[in-house]
């Protein structure tokens, strides 16, 4: 072999694209790690271009202010192990695997030996990193007596209270740990969750999962506002990643938490919101627009002409009615009407087939929001759940709250290290 042809990569760190080139023609024969890493190297191969890779390491976790990717795979897990060491072992393994997958690298530890199952399940081989982010959150139940974490539970982190407008299915609620995987390719996002579930087997079991097929929010300052399944632009007034003052005020936990492990973290609220799309589709355009408070096609507030025109909540029509109706969604949700409370929304549209009881589409919004205090969401939902004109067409059927710890600084760290060791 020609040593000059070999790239300085560890045998376990095989780019998915390089892997594809390397195995072509091998058929079922398999390959040794050494043979693969050296034979398959091509100078033009890269794990992914810079635009396809979102940095994993940093003070905050990726996947929160990251420009919202197109697809979501979300999973909530329960810990079945009883020893804290076993839980920490899995989280360390997960961290390394998530970091590798973010770069388009296969799950570490593959021997490429024919006698063992591959370490990576393989369905992302040949795909780009697709801006994959993998974000972890810890549920309130993790802080019960099992792992000695009760003293580290932040005061604000007690779980969500019962809220108006919800009919919750216990099978879609809660969880000890959440993994949010977002990517521009659905298979890359799914691959990440599947592999973490596999790596955790014996220590954690999946409690519920959710796929999201289309983003419904924008977080990037240049990102176009997408539409939800009701056909309306969603997230026009969302917090953007370049608005660092608002992020510091509303999203990132600071020193006030009293729990160092959450400094730079954020609280994730997940709500599966079923939309009754059939009845919505039978509603007339003017009423649909009154429900949201925006024009359907332009996305402009009913008091403006363009999407980003600021809504005028005091303007009235010629006959004296509020131009943006009293119970319209954008009025009730506006920070101006909620003591300045804002949340960063990062939800996805979902569909899971037909509701067997009604024959209607089981579809809607898998709402995700990040906030520095779960109370921000609670305050907004208390109000929306009671008064929002949208309630006629939606119902919250799943709910969970997770504390997403600060980011991992570098390869010496792991998710939640300051929680488990600090």
């Amino acid at each position, binding site marked *: *072999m020609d040593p000059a042809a070999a790239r300085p990569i560890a045998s376990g760190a095989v780019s998915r694209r390089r892997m594809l080139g390397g195995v072509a*023609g091998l058929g079922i*024969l398999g*390959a040794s790690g050494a043979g693969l890493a050296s034979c398959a190297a091509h100078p033009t191969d890269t794990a992914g271009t810079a635009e396809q890779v979102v940095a994993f390491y940093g003070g905050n976790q990726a996947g929160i202010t990251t420009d919202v990717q197109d697809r979501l795979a979300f999973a909530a897990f329960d810990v079945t192990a009883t020893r804290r060491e076993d839980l920490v072992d899995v989280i360390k393994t997960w961290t390394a695997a998530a970091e590798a997958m973010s770069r388009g690298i296969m799950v570490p530890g593959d021997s490429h030996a024919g006698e063992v199952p591959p370490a990576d399940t393989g369905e992302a081989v040949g795909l780009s990193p697709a801006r994959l982010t993998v974000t972890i959150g810890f549920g309130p139940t993790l802080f019960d007596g099992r792992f000695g974490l009760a003293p580290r539970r932040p005061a604000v982190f007690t779980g969500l209270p019962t809220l108006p407008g919800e009919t919750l299915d216990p099978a879609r609620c809660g969880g000890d740990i959440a993994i949010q995987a977002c990517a521009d390719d659905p298979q890359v996002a799914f691959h990440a969750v599947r592999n973490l579930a596999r790596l955790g087997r014996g220590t954690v079991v999946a409690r519920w999962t959710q796929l999201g097929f289309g983003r419904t929010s924008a977080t990037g300052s240049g990102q176009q506002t997408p539409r939800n399944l009701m056909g309306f632009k969603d997230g026009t007034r969302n917090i953007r990643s370049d608005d660092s003052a608002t992020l510091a005020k509303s999203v990132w936990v600071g020193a006030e938490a009293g729990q160092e492990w959450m400094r730079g973290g954020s609280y994730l609220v997940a709500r599966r919101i079923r939309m009754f799309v059939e009845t919505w589709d039978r509603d007339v355009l003017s009423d649909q627009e009154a429900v949201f408070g925006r024009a359907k096609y332009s996305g402009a507030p009913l008091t403006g002409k363009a999407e980003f025109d600021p809504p005028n909540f005091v303007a009235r029509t010629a006959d004296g009615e509020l131009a943006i109706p009293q119970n319209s969604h954008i009025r009730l949700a506006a920070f101006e009407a909620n003591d300045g409370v804002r949340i960063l929304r990062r939800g996805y549209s979902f569909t899971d087939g037909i509701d067997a009881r009604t024959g209607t589409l089981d579809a809607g919004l898998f709402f995700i929001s990040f906030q520095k205090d779960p109370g921000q969401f609670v305050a907004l939902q208390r109000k929306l759940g009671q008064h929002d004109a949208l309630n006629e067409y939606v119902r919250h059927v799943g709910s969970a709250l997770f504390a997403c710890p600060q980011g991992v600084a570098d390869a010496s760290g792991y998710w939640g290290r300051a929680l488990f060791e600090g």
Partner: protein
Amino acid sequence: MLSTVRIKLCEGVILLVSAAVLVTGCSGPGQPTQPAQPAQPDRPGNASLTVATQGYHDYVVSEVDQLARATTQFTDAVRAGDMDKAKQMFPLARLHYESIEPVAESFGDLDSSIDARIDDVDNPADWTGFHRIEKAMWQDKTLAGMSPTADKLDVDVVSLKSKVAGETYQPAQLANGAGELLNEVSTKKVTGEEDRYSHTDLWDFAANVDGARKCFELLKPALATKNPDLVQRLDARFADVADKLSKYRQGDGYVDYSTVAQDQRRGLADAVNALAEPLSKVAGSVV
């Protein structure tokens, strides 16, 4: 039906050869510049593996002996129309089949003759074996007309007995066979589809796990020197499965599976899947 153990062995040999090509030459897939190195039959650690494979042969022979004896008691009862005795012997005979099922499956049609479910056969009129009689006992509630099926089952079990007498095994077969047994549990036993008329699924469940445990115990000395962490983990997870299963013991056997609630079944499935994952790494450590 699962693919046969024999095919797995063949793949294992090919893999050894191909790996040798790739580590010695770098001219690209499919164009080796050096001849393939033959797999070395005598490698370090082989002494304990030889003991393991011989031990497995003895285990299979012993299980099939017990299967043959219990099956005769079962089929005698069927021919005599003794429903109570036949029902009593049904799970007792089957467990000696379930413990070595991957081996039995390697003998072509024999497995389907002995152990096919109604979904496995093209024509229900051709359906034979344990589950045909199971349906007669628990669903049709009569043994009338079952004598020919009982006779055929005897013949098939005798045939199995003669086949396993001369069979030899490779270490990878023990490891992969153990994995197949747990896959059986997690896909067919947990769902209750195996013994859908008698609800004796937990007997089969336990026998599958026992068969897997036997493979692991035989490989343990070789595994302990190469991967002690894996041994420790597998010991703990086998113990966990045994602990969960023990909650459903009743008399000499197990409770009717229809009385095991969905969330309890899920608990059993989680324990088996937690065991199956590390078990899949055993072959790589002993081959």
